């Protein structure tokens, strides 16, 4: 119930550089995939890759991997709300 302060976890420079490298790879991937002209892939693939890049930034650069479960739950909740808002709007748009 009562949280004592903890010193922040220090992430090594090496980890950060590895993450950066991963992000570069995914960036190149997303540009490459842009050439593919299959309808489903052209929408889903870039979003999926962006989501993976986002998770990398969140987990390592923003330290979410080393954080309390509380924060991860809050973020998930906020993302779910946003998804619902967009999704429910399509209940109207897609079925007009």
């Amino acid at each position: 119930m009562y949280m004592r302060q903890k010193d922040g976890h220090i992430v090594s420079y090496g980890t950060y550089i590895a993450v950066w490298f991963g992000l570069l790879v995914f960036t190149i991937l997303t540009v490459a995939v842009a050439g593919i002209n299959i309808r489903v892939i052209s929408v889903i693939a870039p979003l999926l890759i962006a989501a993976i890049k986002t998770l990398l930034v969140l987990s390592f650069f923003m330290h979410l991997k080393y954080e309390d479960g509380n924060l991860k739950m809050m973020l998930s909740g906020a993302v779910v709300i946003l998804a619902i808002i967009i999704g429910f709007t399509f209940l109207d748009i897609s079925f007009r």
Partner: protein
Amino acid sequence: MNFLEEKGRYRGIFAWIFSTNHKRVGLLYLVSMLAVFSAGVILGLLMRLELIAPGQTIVTARAYNSLFTFHGILMIFLFVIPGLSASFGNFFLPIQIGARDVFFPRLNLLSWWLFISGAILLLVSLFTKDGPADTGWTFYVPYSIRTGTNVSLTLFAILLIGFSSILTGLNFVTTVHRLRAPGMKWFRLPLFVWSLYATGWVQILATPILGITFLLVIAERFFGIGLFDPARGGDPLLYQHLFWIYSHPAVYIMILPPMGVISEIIPTFARRTIFGYKPIVFSSLAIAIVGYLVWGHHMFTSGMSDTAKFIFSLLTFFVAIPSGIKVFNWVATLYKGSIELGTPLLYALSFIFLFSIGGLTGLVNGALATNVHIHDTYFIVAHFHYTMFGGAAFGFFGALHYWFPKMFGRMYNEKFAKLGWLILFIGFNVLFFPMFILGWQGLPRRYYDYLPQFQTGQVISTIGSWLLAAGIILIFTNLIRSIIHGEKAGKNPWGGTTLEWQIPSPPPPENFEEIPLVEHGPYDFGRKG
């Protein structure tokens, strides 16, 4: 020495408007909001006076449009949405969890400054360009883009006020997570605190949508962007979606804290612990979450797809359930309680009655078949006044009387308080109940003129508005007089059990001499002292 008397770096009014003490910020909000409320009531009275007869009575049609626009903006954005959070929440949240202040005291003061800046800009907008906005508080496009009235300044003012709301929510959520006293576990929190916590989340996650929507309207007016303009391929319905994606959760921002106060008042005045503490907690969270899923019920006649209409209607029925749970629990708390019919309890009981009428008529609105008949009629006007005024505002006045002795160290005159309540209650019902009938008979809302067959109802309603105003004047006069001349109140005039009743009235600047150790739940009437 209490927080009212404390001397700091600043003198006079600056000691208040530069204070980061949560109790002073709470009172700053309280006074500002009651001033705005009074202005809103006056606008309402003017509207009712115009409507006492068909045709022009006291204002032109254009002026009437601005009247109801500003009545809505003042009441909604500056009174009911900040509501109990900004005023009593600021004052009592830290005390009820055993803390000395909120987590971000300077941010708290900034919230109030943003609120006041927005209010001032709204005042300015009355006199600049083509005059005050005449779009209704909903600012539907394309009219809000085309009208020459000062929509941009008005929207910008509301953006500031919205940011104020976001910061308050952020502050409260952080405060509840980090500043609870030792032993104050989550399920020992007072229900008012739970309601503020749930509300805080809605403020954080819903308000930004209003922000971007109003920004886009301003951008459209200045740069012709075209995102909502049908002439440029934009969809005006998307504006409505974005607007209601915020404004529906906003009504839960308005009602959750008052519900929280009712959960405080009833145990105290029934001298019994609350029935179903956990169901009330979970129902507050459920209302906050399900509240995001129903916004389309404001748009049933707008041109949405049938699929959307069906699903939004279905979900709207679900959101009524948690509110029902609360009503059952409150009534159950009263059963076999040792009831003291003080003024706060009168407000709580009338809240339950009036909010239930509002809520039940909400079901009529939520059903697709009936909605077609009553949408945009006076039936809707009656519905939301029963929930927002009969519910939220009555809750506000209940809180005002409940916590008055604690904030000011004085008691109000009980007889005048009860008389004020009675006149307010009667006036309220005479004013708004006829609107259900008028609406059902087909009288549209926001209409300046109407057919003679509707006049009887309109006259009754206008008379009700005068009664209501008389009640409000009596209530305010009583309270203001009592601040100066009232009998001194002790720590705990009601025999309440939450932490605010264990400290002096008015509280000292730091609230507690020593941070308390909490060893039991909030409504423990079994113990002594």
